[in-house]
Structures are given as structure tokens and as C-alpha cells.
């Protein structure tokens, strides 16, 4: 690893000193803090855009919280001043000690309500708890006057997601939903330059996407770090297994099509500049034990879009028993194809033979010319198959951690220097789109979307 990488990271510690009275305050039960009403608390918060370091709380220190935290640690001017999680003996300890390594003084909490009451200098909260907690925690944080970055899915229910949008509007606070591809420079380039400006793909007719994963065992836990059953019950879990594997349980998460598909189906809506008019889907819990995997372990969904250029049919598949092909989205138009994935090494752009040449877009820096590869000696033309067209590529790479640009966009928005790339309204539209796929599977029918479904 180059030294410059480290110096850049270490440089972020040149933050203004913290005027705080605490260092690792392990708080007890909720006391007087909650007596202070949310309106009072909100008015006590700063309302003007900040130009100095931002004080940020991390609510949820599990795997996703740690991914977001590691990106935050690489962003200048971000101070993690509070962490909150109910798993004190493992994930919360892990994150707390990590923050000590980076010299971020912080308070530590089990209950987010106590954190909001106690932490008076916060600017923002990053929420990475299980989906069924998102609505309550987001609404409370917004009402406490804070900007919120909430992981997708914004809620496991549309009622919950609606409350989040309404709270953002009511409080006037920022709410960014964690569909991080919306801030990924590669995706932004494809949308703004290739689709919007150049229109090189012509009329989209078909979309195909997937996220295929290998069989994975249930998540376990170090037995000595087992959470007390009373604490688990208090926060909505039957037991430790359910706490660790909440994504599979109805009433807590949305299953793989929501966990994984949500990111990609969000891109369908974005790139097609439309919302679907129907979804047909099949799926089931066919491989895993349905007692512990209540959500479908595979879903195949077919969305229909009515775009301004005509009908588009968009297929999406998620399976959890085989990783073949990994994850990607393919947008097929009558002039070309965009094959893209969040994995930076995977993006190919193909021109249909009848399409105008793309030289001008190469010259403008929108595309990179295909790398010519020498044909193998003795190769023969196989007439049974269409020849693979040359693959154009994007003119740049994105080597940052995937979530860093989206977090940067959020922090820039707090400082008044940017607009959010994934507002509550966008997140809500995606939630409607994705959650209806589960409904279509459950009801074994084609589910129609009304335009009012996407409105609040």
C-alpha cells in the first residue's frame, strides 16, 4: 500500500478540537434526557449550513454500519461522535475500539432515544439498523433536527416509508436513502452522458439484471457475546438467531429481492426515467428451511414500464444458491447495450450494427474505444452464433469504496454545497417498486401500479 494513501487518511485527523465533556461515556438507562421534547431539541440544533467538521452518529454497528463507517473514516471533516447498538459485547465494542484507533471521541449508547437526547452537538445520523427500525429511528432523528442517511430498504413497510417522507418534509431536514449507486460516478456518467446527452442506446426495449449468490450458512455469533434475552425482546427479537439473521424474517426485512434487488431495480427506474406499471413475479423458499427463512430465497420478477419512448420490459432475478454471473444490470436499446455492475471492473458498452458510429462520443470523452484483440490463429467463423460486437468502455474508473461518494454527497448537502442524490421521495418510489415484487410472489398474480402508489 502506498504511503500517500495512509498520509491522506491520517490527514483527516487534523480536525478542530472537540469541545465535549466526554470520552467513552457508557450510558445507563434513559433518564432526564427524554423529558426534553423533540421540538425543543430540534430548535436547539444548528440550522445554518455547516462549514466546519460535522458531528455524526452511527446508529447500527453491524456489517453495513461498519462498511459505512470505514468510508466515513476516509472523508475529511467527519467526526463520529456517537455510536449506538444493542450488541454491546461485539459489534458495538468493535466499532467503538476502531474509533479509538482513529481518535474519534464518542459516546456509546444502547438506545437511540437516549443518544438523541444526550448528544446535543450532532449534525447527522447514519442509520444502518435492521429495516424494521428505520422508520421510527429516522422520524425521531429528523424531528430532533438532524440530517439522516438511512440505509436501504428505507422501511420494510410502505406505511413506514411514507412516514419517513412526511417527516422529512415536515421538519425540512435532509434524508438521504442509501441507494449508493445514485452517487457512483460511473452510473452518473452512464445516465447523464450516454443515455441523456448522447442517447447512444436509442430506444430501450429490454432490461435484464440479476444478483446471484452462493449458498450461505446462517450467521452465528460468539456464544460469550450473546445478548441478554430481555434486551433482545425489548428491541423486537425472539432470540439471538433472529437478531443475527433478521433479513430472512417477515416483519423485519424484505428478503433477498429487497436486500439485493432494491439497489438494482432503483437503477431501472432511474435510467428508464419512469416507474413501472406492473410486476409479475414468482419465487419461494425452495432451498432453505422456511422456518428460519421466511422470505423467498429466489425471486424472478418481470416489470413493465411505459416510458415516453414506448414499453420496456425489465427482468430481475435474485437467487441465493448459485453465484453464476454475479450481479449486473443490462440495458438493451435498439442502438446499443449497456452492461454495468457496481463492481468497477465490469462495464461493457456495445453498439448495434445499424447504429450510427460512436466516434464522436469517443472524441468527446464519453466512451473509450474497444481494445482490439488479435484473433487466435486458425480461428474460424462459427456461423451458428452472432459475432460478439466490440466492447466499448467508460473513460475512467471508480476505485473508491462503493459507499463513499454517496456519503460525500450527503455531507456536502448538509453543508449546503450539493443536492441529495437519493431523496426520501426517490427512496420511496424504489420501495414501492421493490416491495410490490414480494406482493406479486405472495399473491401469485400480476400486480398493477397506479400512479398514486408513488405519491405521498
Amino acid at each position, binding site marked *: 500500500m502506498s504511503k500517500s494513501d*495512509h498520509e491522506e487518511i491520517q490527514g483527516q485527523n487534523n480536525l478542530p478540537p472537540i469541545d465535549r465533556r466526554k470520552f467513552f461515556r457508557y450510558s445507563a438507562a434513559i433518564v432526564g434526557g427524554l423529558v426534553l421534547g423533540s421540538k425543543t431539541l430540534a430548535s436547539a440544533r444548528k440550522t445554518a449550513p455547516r462549514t466546519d467538521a460535522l458531528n455524526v452518529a452511527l446508529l447500527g454497528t453491524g456489517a453495513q454500519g461498519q462498511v459505512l463507517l470505514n468510508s466515513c473514516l476516509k472523508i475529511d471533516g467527519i467526526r463520529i461522535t456517537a455510536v449506538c447498538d444493542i450488541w454491546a459485547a461485539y459489534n458495538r465494542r468493535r466499532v467503538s475500539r476502531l474509533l479509538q484507533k482513529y481518535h474519534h471521541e464518542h459516546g456509546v449508547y444502547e438506545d437511540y432515544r437516549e443518544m438523541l437526547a444526550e448528544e446535543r452537538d450532532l449534525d447527522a445520523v447514519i442509520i444502518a439498523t435492521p429495516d424494521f427500525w428505520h422508520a421510527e429511528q429516522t422520524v425521531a432523528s429528523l424531528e430532533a433536527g438532524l440530517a439522516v442517511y438511512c440505509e436501504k430498504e428505507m422501511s420494510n413497510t410502505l406505511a413506514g416509508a411514507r412516514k419517513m417522507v412526511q417527516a422529512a418534509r415536515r421538519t425540512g431536514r435532509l434524508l438521504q436513502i442509501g441507494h449508493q449507486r445514485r452517487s457512483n460516478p460511473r452510473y452518473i456518467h452512464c445516465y447523464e452522458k450516454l443515455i441523456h446527452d448522447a442517447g447512444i442506446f436509442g430506444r430501450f426495449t429490454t432490461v435484464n439484471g440479476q444478483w446471484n449468490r452462493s449458498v450461505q450458512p446462517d450467521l452465528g455469533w460468539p456464544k460469550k457475546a450473546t445478548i441478554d434475552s430481555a434486551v433482545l425482546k425489548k428491541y423486537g427479537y425472539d432470540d439471538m438467531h433472529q437478531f443475527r439473521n433478521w433479513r430472512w424474517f417477515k416483519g423485519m426485512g424484505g428478503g433477498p429481492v429487497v436486500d439485493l434487488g432494491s439497489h438494482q431495480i432503483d437503477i431501472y427506474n432511474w435510467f428508464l426515467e419512469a416507474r413501472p406499471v406492473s410486476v409479475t413475479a414468482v419465487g419461494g423458499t425452495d432451498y432453505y428451511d422456511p422456518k428460519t427463512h421466511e422470505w423467498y430465497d429466489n425471486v424472478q420478477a418481470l416489470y413493465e414500464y411505459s416510458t415516453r419512448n414506448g414499453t420496456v420490459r425489465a427482468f430481475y432475478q435474485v437467487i441465493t444458491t448459485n453465484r453464476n454471473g454475479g450481479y449486473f444490470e443490462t440495458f438493451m436499446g435498439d442502438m446499443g447495450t449497456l452492461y454495468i455492475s457496481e463492481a468497477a471492473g465490469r462495464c461493457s458498452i456495445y453498439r448495434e450494427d445499424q447504429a450510427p458510429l460512436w466516434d464522436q462520443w469517443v472524441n468527446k470523452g464519453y466512451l473509450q474505444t474497444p481494445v482490439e484483440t488479435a484473433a487466435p490463429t486458425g480461428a474460424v467463423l462459427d456461423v451458428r452464433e452472432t459475432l460478439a460486437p466490440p466492447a466499448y468502455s467508460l473513460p475512467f474508473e471508480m476505485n473508491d469504496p462503493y459507499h463513499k461518494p454517496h456519503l460525500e454527497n450527503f455531507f456536502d448537502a448538509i453543508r449546503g454545497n450539493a443536492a441529495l442524490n437519493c431523496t426520501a421521495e426517490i427512496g420511496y418510489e424504489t420501495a414501492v417498486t421493490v416491495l410490490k415484487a414480494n406482493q406479486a410472489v405472495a399473491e401469485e398474480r400480476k400486480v398493477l401500479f397506479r400512479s398514486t402508489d408513488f405519491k405521498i
Partner: protein
Amino acid sequence: MNTAHIRAIGLLLLSVQLLNSTQEAAEEKLVPLEIELPKPMFIGTPQNLRVPNLEKPLGKPRPPFLAPMGTVNLALGRAVTSSDDFPVIGELEMVTDGDKEAPDGSFVELGPFLQQVTIDLGQPCELFAVVVWHYHMQPLVYFDVIIQIATDSTFVNNPVTIYNNDLDNSAALGMGTDNHYVETSEGRLVDAQGTIGRYVRLYSNGNTSNDLNHYIEVEIYGRPVE
């Protein structure tokens, strides 16, 4: 006779011993090392892997490694020290506790940037292979993986480097030419070539996902020097 002379003689003796042991090893019957592997386990979304000098995955099990009959894992249960004595999570004992599985509770996570763990084998040993599992729950690549063997705990007296992929000498231990590689449940086997030593030290300097350093298990195959 000054210190330099003593050191030179010591080195000569060590070299002769090494030569002899290497020759003996060559003459001995070699058998495949039996390494018990943990369950493969990749979970979550891998982060971008844009790493120079990255070894292409073999796509099949590692070929058997031959070592003299009687070679055993000398590291099991041995004391471990580290540059980070306040791990982010886990305990240093996990490095040699025999648990090679990937889930939470099976690994120690050390702080950011360059860190090392050192295993004391208790006595000089003839070493044939070091196998390290940093973390195989995600396809990560660790930077500045350097493995050294020494006869002294300070690693001052001519430590032998058996692996080094620090391409830019950012760890200041010398530039390495070995490959970066993707972590898997097979671990990384490094040929120790019969090196004599009591202490084995493993460095790393963050990974493709974050700046932290992880160890699930380290096995050191060899036999005590009689």
C-alpha cells in the same frame, strides 16, 4: 574477538546448520502436508479489487505441499504478541487456537495500517511452511504481507524473509516481489524452506476493504531442532 566476529561466526554456524538440515531434508522422505481447511464462506458485497501484481486465482485446490515425515503444526496454542495489544475485536490467542472458521468470534482484528503478530515457538525449530488465514469471509487482498523467521525475539539478527509483497517498500522492511493474492478458505501457504528459527512474525498493512488487519489462524509447520 569483538561482537562482529562473534556475529560472523554465529552466522557461519547457522548457515552450516541450515545447509545440513536442508540437505538432510532433501534426503528424507517427503510426504504431503495434511492441512485441515475451514468451510468456504463469502458473505456480503466485495469491495473494489484494484490491486497491482494480483495473482490469478488457481481455480482448483492448491497442490499438495511436501514436507518431511513428522512435520507438525508447531504454532498451535503458542503465545502470540502483536504491535497492537488492544485489538479492535477478538484476542491474540485466536491466531493460534486452531479455529480456522471465518465467522464473528473466530478472528482478531488489529488496528489500522502496518501491524504485526509474532508467534514464539518456544525453541528453535526447522520450519517448512507457514499457512496464514487473514480473513476469508470476503474476497479481500491484504497489503504488505511480509513473513519473517528469526532466532531472536527482536528480529534484529538477520531475520529471514520468506514472503514479501510490499511492492513499494512502504513497510520499510525492503521491497518485495511476491504477489498480492485474494484471501480464500485455503489460506496462504508459504514455503519456509527449512529455515531455522524460534519466532515467526507476520506483517500486514490493511486490505482492499479497510485499513484494518485480521488473523483467523496461523499454522507453522516444522519440527523442533534437536
